């Protein structure tokens, strides 16, 4: 039976990895990811989790060891943030290129310089094209649940891809939250032991990571692309299975009060909670506003997104990262491209906020809406605006 517990989200993330019976954890400490790997070390040291904890000397080696471990057929977990994720960059592409079902919790944090340990999405937005399945959690419960789902998806023989679960640094990682903690039997029923389709086994030798000559490279990349696209129905299937098993349902795109709303905020991660409260307040003030939250970032659920925004007139894209030299943040740039390809012509605004741990408040959302209403009425665009810059 599941228990109701009050737990720091990082610890819940680690407990989820334990529920998943990970065989290997290879990790290097970086704030704000540390509590996740510290707790996993404790679980291993105390004999509560039968796993090898490999305390590597860098994040590059963390992901390298994960590649080796997963290639050996072991259920493999790591976690990182910001500079650590950037140091892994090279290996992230190889992990997906070799089709290895590694699961990583990314405690989202801003990239240097200036050095900042606080939250935004600049770390993961620099890794959009790594070929991993990528999800964003809004709450601690969601972090816990997405971890189980991540292994389930990654190891599904129809997928065989690494999965990154994003959780906002500090805002989620260091918050104590009440949540439902499944028991081991429930977790086992959902997630059976990992059976790799192939591994480094002397009884059945395979070569992995061979040279891709120009005659085969394109085809190899195409196969990986198709694998990521084809993971979409499996991702949904395993969320449906999760709902049946645990009673909590998840969708690629979530909506809140979108019916009859003229203007929709599009958010990712923990900001969704604040936005939701702000939407309630704005609704009380008679504003026709709602919210769309992107949970599944890769592969991007185009149709779900288009369905979610179908009735709206105005969209407000919230970015927590910059894409310097381009007219908007990474989320807005992609979504505008999507709208264009779908033939949807509507007013869109982009606000970049919450960089480097700057708080984003309900008042901020109200301010954004006011600007959008004024701009839309005047027929002006808000291509991209950074919120709350002190000038």
């Amino acid at each position, binding site marked *: 039976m599941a228990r109701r517990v009050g737990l720091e989200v990082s610890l819940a993330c680690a407990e989820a990895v334990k529920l998943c019976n990970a*065989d*290997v954890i*290879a990790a290097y400490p970086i704030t704000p990811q540390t509590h996740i790997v510290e707790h996993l070390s404790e679980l291993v040291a105390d004999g509560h989790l*039968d*796993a*090898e904890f*490999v*305390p*590597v*000397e*860098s994040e*590059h*080696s963390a992901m*390298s*060891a*994960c*590649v*080796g*471990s*997963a*290639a*050996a*057929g*072991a259920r*493999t977990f790591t976690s990182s943030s910001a500079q650590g994720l950037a140091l892994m960059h*090279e*290996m992230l592409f*190889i992990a997906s290129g*070799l089709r290895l079902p590694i699961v990583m919790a990314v405690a989202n944090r801003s990239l240097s310089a200036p050095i900042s340990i606080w939250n935004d999405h600049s770390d993961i937005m620099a890794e959009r094209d790594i070929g991993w399945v990528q999800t964003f959690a809004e709450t601690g419960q969601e972090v816990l649940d997405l971890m189980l789902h991540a292994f389930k998806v990654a190891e599904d023989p129809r997928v065989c891809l690494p999965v990154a679960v994003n959780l906002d640094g500090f805002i989620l990682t260091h918050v104590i939250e009440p949540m439902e903690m499944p028991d081991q039997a429930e977790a086992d029923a959902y997630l059976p*032991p990992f059976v790799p389709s192939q*591994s*480094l*086994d*002397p*009884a*059945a*030798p*395979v*070569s*992995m*990571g*061979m*040279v*891709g*000559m120009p005659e*085969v490279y394109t085809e*190899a990349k195409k196969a990986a692309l198709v694998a990521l696209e084809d993971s979409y129905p499996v991702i949904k299937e395993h969320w449906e299975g999760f709902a049946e098993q645990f009673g909590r349902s998840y969708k690629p795109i979530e909506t809140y009060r979108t019916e009859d709303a003229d203007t929709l905020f599009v958010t990712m991660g923990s900001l969704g909670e604040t936005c939701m409260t702000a939407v309630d307040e704005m609704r009380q003030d008679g504003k026709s506003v709602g919210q769309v939250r992107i949970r599944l970032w890769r592969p991007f659920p185009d149709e779900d997104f288009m369905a979610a925004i179908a009735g709206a007139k105005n969209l407000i894209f919230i970015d927590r990262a910059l894409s310097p030299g381009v007219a908007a943040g990474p989320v807005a740039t992609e979504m505008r491209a999507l709208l264009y390809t779908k033939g949807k012509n509507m007013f869109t605004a982009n606000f970049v906020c919450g960089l480097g741990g700057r708080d984003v408040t309900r008042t901020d959302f109200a301010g954004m809406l006011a600007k959008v209403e004024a701009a839309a009425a005047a027929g002006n665009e808000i291509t991209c605006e950074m919120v709350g810059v002190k000038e």
Partner: protein
Amino acid sequence: MKTATEALKDFQKITPKKIPAVEPFSKGHRACQGCGEVLALRLVAKAVGMDMIAVSATGCMEIISSPYPQTAWEVPWIHVAFENAAAVASGIEAGRKALIRKGRIKDDGAKVVAFAGDGATADIGLQALSGALERGHDFTYVCLDNEAYMNTGIQRSSSTPYGAMTTTSPPGEKSKGQMTWKKNMPMIAAAHNIPYVATASPAWHVDLMNKVKKAVTIPGPAYIHIYSPCPTGWRCGPEVSIETARQVVKSRIFPLFEVIDGRFVLTRDIKKPIPVSEYFATQRRFSHLDENDIAYIQKRVDDDWDRLLSLCQVTADEPPVEEPPTGE
């Protein structure tokens, strides 16, 4: 520390009449004519046997052995990137350890062996190697040292010997070629207090294979540094490849030794060394050196040899370092 000593108590030597017939690394690869590196690799593979799990760093041996869909590897093999063969090997070892303990795979006694060139070892992969050695994973790391970045076109590495001409250490008005002394990787590996370190040359193939066999027999990390002639990069004929591998030892430039549980043991004493100039003569990479340069190198080679002999003497009777207490 007596890990190696105990593991080698009943060590069955490979002899010239009992060379393993297995070929985990098969023929048909694309290495250059006279390549000493691929020969060394083949000898290592024969000594380890068919229960090897091989990891290759990016480099010549990876490129020539695995142009998809062809592979020269008859054993499980993985290539990931340039700088991380040791980290990948540590992950494989950790993964297998967990799976064996949990009864999910059988303990087949497979040996994890990482292969990397000198650049992948002494330069870009040094951190990953140091980490894996320090963490004590049960694996063998083989550095196939051809003394430059040959795969990319003969650029200097920190393992390139003093004076050698490469494409990024060209001799010129203001340069003698490589201006730094070769990084001493075996000593760096030994400084990690691992159970076994050895140097080897393909000119002594039985010695090479026995060192490899020892390395994979001993639990914990082992490091083997193999001198690997590269006719293409050294500007010498393919027919002198093995002779070069012999001369480098006979000149005392590349001594053959082992470090067993911290004790240095010379495996081939060179009582009457040939002059370094004799070793240089067949390789155009050294052809620009003048008498003064050669005298400097000779002196330094002699000094290094004496230092190694001293190390052998002082460590010979050292009591083993106490093992830490065991127990849960």
